[in-house]
């Protein structure tokens, strides 16, 4: 694997697809979809070597590439992957072809533009996961906004314009403040060390004092918390999810929300450990509120898609709880749960999209008794539902278990409060499932509903396989994160204990002075 810039190839390969799409006639929709799907699939296949050749015996970044970009300001094109970003990277390449497949009949106007948006979005997402230069990260981070804005705004539902603008403005307000924080950090570290750089690894080594950290952390955390989204900044999410087309929702839930949690662990917590330590209670409180609030609101939703959207708020709250437990179980559980949530919530959105295509409604009250009419759908839907609520044997269980183990280790109360999510999520998901799938058929239209076709089954099969793989062999994935997470924690603990020791020294000096 030496010498091949595999990460850049995977990241920018979709753009090649965009060029090809531009050359194909707009009317030729089948060819357009086919080409886009093949491009996305190839991208997934070439991303697999990254997974297989990833060396799990080293904590550092692998497959790194570095080129000078803007020399005067110390900006470089610096990418690399470690155990934290590896699986998210592969998750992204895995989900995009599925998204294109599930939009096959859902999207019927301006198909070419839609596919272009999807592929540009893929580049943006992949880039954000591998960027190791703050400037580069920011560029990719914002680049994702443009295609997502169009995906929601053009191909969305009734209130798509409102949802698209809300999505962009929320994200933008957070991220511009992060830009200022990046610059302040850049000049602060630069003036201390004389080395002006946006290189993340160098910035890791020069942590500013707490008084500076806390402001910068606030700016970074705001930006990421909006993206996660944490309570009370979550209000854009239900709108965006409900209005977005299926593929948009899948990407949004599957990958974009993970940008927030990933940003926390890679940037906000990594760069500002002391500020993180100081704000643990705050963030844990918000996470737990999010877990419970999201679940309760989800329970009351009449619209299935909105229900799943609010369940995301709850699940992501759990991820944040895991990350802020700041021990190995919590963080690994958090990362694992990011993947699980990407898969299971993505799958839920796909299945809701399939229902919507058949019945043009998403209201729970319009369904009922579908099991007998569409048994294949019902089977898949059951597995997806169970995965989402964390049934042992499926992927969701592993993530949740680790998170709560971590939370328990950190503070019993957190775990007790957090674990309510398991009960609540079982309640709202199973209740929803019951109302949609079981019972008598009340509506005549539901009798004529068609079962899944081959394309739809092929969309679901890879995801369901992954549910079982990740549920039964979690160690294959967890093994890849161990060292990187350890490294993160070591660095974190070093800074936090160091500052405590410093305080003690100061205290002793003060006492000595007396």
């Amino acid at each position, binding site marked *: 694997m030496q010498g091949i810039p595999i990460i850049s190839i995977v990241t920018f390969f979709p753009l090649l697809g965009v060029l090809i799409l531009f050359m194909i006639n*707009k009317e030729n929709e089948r060819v357009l979809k086919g080409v886009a799907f093949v491009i996305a699939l190839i991208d997934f296949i070439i991303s697999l070597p990254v997974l297989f050749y990833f060396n799990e015996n080293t904590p550092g970044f692998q497959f790194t590439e570095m080129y000078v970009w803007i020399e*005067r300001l110390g900006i470089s094109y610096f990418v690399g992957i470690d155990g934290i970003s590896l699986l998210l990277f592969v998750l992204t390449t895995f989900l995009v072809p599925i998204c294109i497949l599930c939009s096959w009949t859902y999207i019927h106007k*301006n198909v070419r533009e839609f596919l272009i948006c999807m592929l540009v979005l893929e580049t943006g997402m992949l880039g954000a996961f591998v960027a190791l230069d703050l400037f580069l990260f920011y560029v990719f981070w*914002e680049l994702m906004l*443009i295609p997502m*804005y169009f995906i929601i705004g053009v191909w969305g539902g009734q209130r798509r*314009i409102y949802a698209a603008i809300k999505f962009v*403005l929320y994200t933008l307000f957070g991220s511009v*403040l992060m830009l*200022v924080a990046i610059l302040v950090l850049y000049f602060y570290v630069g003036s201390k060390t004389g080395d002006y750089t946006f290189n993340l690894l160098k910035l890791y080594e020069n942590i500013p004092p707490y008084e500076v950290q806390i402001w910068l952390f606030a700016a970074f955390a705001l930006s990421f918390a909006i993206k996660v989204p944490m309570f009370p900044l979550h209000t854009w999410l239900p709108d965006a999810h409900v209005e977005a087309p299926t593929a948009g929702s899948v990407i949004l839930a599957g990958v974009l929300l993970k940008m927030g949690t990933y940003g926390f662990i890679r940037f906000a917590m990594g760069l500002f450990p002391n500020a993180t330590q100081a704000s643990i209670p705050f963030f844990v409180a918000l996470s737990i509120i999010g877990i419970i609030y999201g679940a309760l609101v989800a329970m009351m939703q009449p619209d299935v898609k909105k229900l799943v959207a609010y369940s995301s708020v709850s699940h992501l709250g759990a991820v944040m709880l895991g990350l802020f437990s700041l021990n190995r179980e919590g963080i690994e559980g958090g990362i694992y749960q990011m993947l699980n949530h990407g898969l299971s919530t993505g799958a839920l959105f796909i299945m809701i999209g399939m229902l919507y295509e058949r019945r043009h409604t998403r209201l729970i009250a319009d369904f009922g008794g579908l099991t007998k009419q569409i048994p294949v759908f019902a089977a898949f839907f059951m597995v997806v539902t169970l995965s989402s609520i964390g049934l042992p044997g499926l992927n969701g269980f592993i993530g949740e278990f680790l998170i709560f183990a971590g939370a328990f280790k950190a503070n019993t109360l957190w775990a007790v409060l957090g674990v309510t999510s398991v009960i609540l999520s079982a309640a709202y998901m199973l209740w929803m499932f019951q109302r949609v799938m079981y019972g008598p058929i009340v509506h005549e239209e539901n009798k004529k509903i068609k079962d899944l076709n081959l394309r739809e089954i092929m969309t679901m099969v890879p995801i369901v396989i992954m549910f079982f793989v990740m549920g039964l062999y979690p160690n294959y994935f967890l093994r890849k994160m161990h060292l990187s997470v350890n490294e993160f924690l070591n660095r974190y603990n070093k800074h936090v204990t160091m500052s405590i020791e410093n305080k003690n020294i100061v205290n002793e000096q003060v006492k000595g002075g007396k």
Partner: protein
Amino acid sequence: MGELNINFWSIAPQLVLICFGFLLMLIGGYTKVSKSGYLGQISALGIALAFMVNIYLFGSRKLGFSNIILFDELVGIFNAIFFVSGFLVCLLSDNYIEGKIKHTGEYYALILFAIAGMSFMVSALDFLILFLGLEMMSLSIYVLAGLFKQSERSIESAMKYFLLGSFSTAIFLLGVAFLYGAFGTTNFAYMLQHFTKYFMDGKSLPLLMGSALVFSGIVFKIAAVPFHMWTPDVYEGAPTTVTAFMATAVKAAAFSMLFRVYLLGLRGVVVDYAGIIAYLAVFTMTLGNLSALAQKSVKRMLAYSSIAHAGYLLVGFTSLNQIGLGAVIFYLISYALMNIGAFAIISFFEKETHSTELNHLSGKGFKHPFLGFMMVIFMFSLAGVPPTSGFAGKFYIFTGAIQSGYVSLAIIGVLNSAISAYYYLRVLVYMYFKDAEEPISNINISAPQVVAILISAIGVLNIGVLPGKLFDLTIKSVSFLF
């Protein structure tokens, strides 16, 4: 002051432009109105020639006409901004002014004269030359704004601009008179050299009065708060191509005055002004953006947004360090490209629908994929989203501000930038998210216009992805100040 040293090389680009200006008037007079289509290309050729002369001279330092003209790298780079804007505007005017302006020769000649005036402004080393250049530019623009003689709005715009502009130049001139009283000269080099000698014990009243009056004159041309009121009406009424020219080249020229006067001649007082400019920047950005939010006409929205951009530029100027000042020039370049591009597309649709209202853009994005895609690039660039030049420019400006410790200014700036995203994206909302209200007719775009749009768009993306080289160049052009 030394002996008379006339050095025509120091004004060579201007000479080319003036020659072509006269040539155009001549040809225009002898050409049938129906066959005057190629005049735009001739003027573009003239500007291109001036641009090449400018490149040939770039890097050298030429002093001429008894030290009242200076050609240095700063002049070179500002010239490049004027020439590129003028070049694009000439190509874009092609189809747009057809049928609305009878004698197109005059139109193009006036653009060339205006550019020559700007070029004189930036190369002036003396207040008098600066003033002559300013008047040469302003008078040409007053006429250009009113050239759509059939349109009331155009006449109104020209009248308003002329009256208010005359006031501002009068005030500017009064300031120059005060400064002459304080120094006994109008030469920048002399002022700079003897500044400390004159004002050893405090800055005298005539100096402060003079610099304040000159400053107001410049702020008027920049269209910054509190002298911005003319902007929306004038920009909206003028022919769209002329508006594009005013919003980019004239603004750049006004900033070149700020550089020449306050960083060269009156360098001693610029520190006193930094605080004022910081406040002006805040008000200019905020007012421009908030007003733009409420606009229904794209043209008027872009007018207000140009006020907001003047605010960002002032943030860069306030920081008074190499990165910040370089960023101002960098931003002017990128602003010229994206703004002319945006105005150009508006002018195409205006030609078709006779309106610049937002709702007339409904559904146009998918019907005209090329124009739509270009508009996406320009709008995201204006909003400052990567990977466009608008983002790179803002990034440099705020980098400069933070380096000088203006963190709060940077925060206000980025928040403003986020607000601005709303109204820029609203254009795309209409173009892409809404369905067409009216039957869509074909749009006639001529080859020069396509070339101009492509140059702008490629420029925006190229500078956005690889800003390093251009930024080094802008930094180098201001390095003589440090």
